[in-house]
């Protein structure tokens, strides 16, 4: 069953986020994806996350689609104007890539090409409106398309927005109006904090897919807790990694427990981001 069908059916979906390479050696990227084939519903291919230049999401998705994997293409406002965005969306749909995740994109100053000129012609909501317009058979200029693309569109929901819940909910409503069908959260390390956020959702029946980012070390846990304001890192978790006899095993175990907790809590799915620990993904998924 496809990602879109499972999502519509209310079945738990499992996504893995795999970064394409900076360069043309795609052996590891494709290999990692192939090893989780059948264990995940789709592979999310980021579009130059953190503004670091690498193979595009469309290219990465095509590489995996050629190996029979279902993918989620990220569409990003940072680097393309409305012409290029629509052109790539049509290309993706024509190539069979119809799962999308719309993102605004970090500014170039975050990445490795800080001299680049950012685009941001459309913002995230406008991008989703553009996607909806294409799915209605017309482009943003109102010109009729030869063949209408159909997409399953998701975006992000900042469930870590502690002091700005109302603003986040307002943005969520705009995203729902713009056609968002599922929402991916920032990395979650505290399921209670996530549950506390979801209480604010009221009667909005949204498909929420929490992100599980694999911790690698105490230092990484501390850095996340210190620098990522929208990610809640419990002190106990840092202590747990610190005191573990085998820290690597403990980090993997934390991810496994988070995934189990997410399933048990009835969320729509999970997106796992191995971020360098792709080789441990089959074990985590098989657990």
């Amino acid at each position, binding site marked *: 069953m496809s990602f879109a069908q499972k999502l519509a059916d209310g079945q738990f979906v499992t996504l893995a986020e795999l970064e394409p390479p900076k360069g043309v050696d795609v052996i590891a990227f494709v290999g990692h994806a192939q090893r989780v084939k059948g264990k995940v519903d789709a592979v999310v291919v980021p579009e130059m996350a953190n503004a670091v230049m690498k193979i595009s999401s469309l290219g990465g998705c095509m590489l995996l689609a050629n190996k029979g994997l279902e993918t989620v293409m990220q569409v990003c406002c940072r680097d393309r104007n409305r012409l290029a965005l629509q052109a790539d969306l049509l290309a993706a749909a024509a190539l069979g890539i119809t799962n999308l995740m719309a993102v605004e994109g970090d*500014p*170039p*100053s975050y990445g490795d090409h*800080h*001299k*680049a*000129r*950012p685009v941001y012609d459309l913002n995230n909501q406008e991008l989703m409106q553009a996607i909806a317009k294409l799915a209605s058979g017309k482009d943003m200029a109102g010109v009729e398309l030869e063949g209408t693309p159909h997409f399953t569109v998701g975006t992000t929901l900042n469930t870590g927005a502690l002091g700005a819940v109302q603003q986040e909910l307002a943005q969520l409503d705009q995203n729902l109006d713009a056609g968002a069908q599922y929402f991916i959260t920032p990395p979650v390390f505290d399921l209670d904090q996530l549950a506390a956020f979801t209480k604010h959702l009221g009667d909005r029946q949204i498909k929420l897919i929490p992100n599980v980012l694999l911790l690698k070390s105490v230092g990484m846990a501390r850095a996340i807790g210190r620098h990522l304001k929208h990610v809640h890192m419990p002190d106990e978790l840092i202590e747990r990694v610190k005191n573990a006899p085998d820290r690597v095993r403990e980090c993997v175990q934390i991810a496994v427990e988070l995934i189990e907790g997410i399933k048990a809590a009835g969320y729509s799915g999970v997106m796992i981001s191995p971020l360098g620990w792709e080789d441990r993904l089959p074990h985590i998924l098989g657990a």
Partner: protein
Amino acid sequence: MIVANGKPLEEIIAAVKDRQKILVAGCNECVTVCEVGGTKEVGILASALRLHFLNQGIKAEVGETTLQRQCDREYLVQARETVEPYDIVVSIACGVGCQFMAEEFSTQPVVPGVDTMFMGGALERGVWSERCQGCGTCLLAKTGGICPVSRCAKRVLNGPCGGSTKGKCEISKDVDCAWQLIIDRLKALGRLDDYETLMPIKDWSTDRAGGPRKRIKEEVAS
């Protein structure tokens, strides 16, 4: 100077409707020179608003003021007594002035009465032309004093492109090809050798790529 264009009266009316006391605030600097936001234009806009309210049978008071500079806190503070009695301010300074006004009078609505367009100068009476986009890394020394960033439609740094015909840009016969101007100028300066030197790919981090910008002059900043 910063060049702006007056907003349609209907848009301004829509922004101030339901307000009884409206202040039209001009600025004595750039917008006065480009004849869109000085004392004269404050009077014209205020009169137009009064006429509108009169025709609609609406009782509203429209005040007028022109600050020396709306982009300067020093003058905004002095204007406090004038501004505070009003329900809303229509700022016909540039976008900078309008924002500084809004920041200074944080509990009063401030709406723009002009659309701020560009940094430029007057070609003749009533005609202003763009000359600078504030990219943060000036190239004029290399291009004979003619800016390809603000004057070339494609911001080409090693032009001209194939769209240059008889000195005009392909986007409009009314637009000069910036690179034709640059070549003519370098020729006149006897510097055509400079034209042969390829310009490196531009660093846009000093433009908006690095986010909103701020300049700090250490020796005078407190």
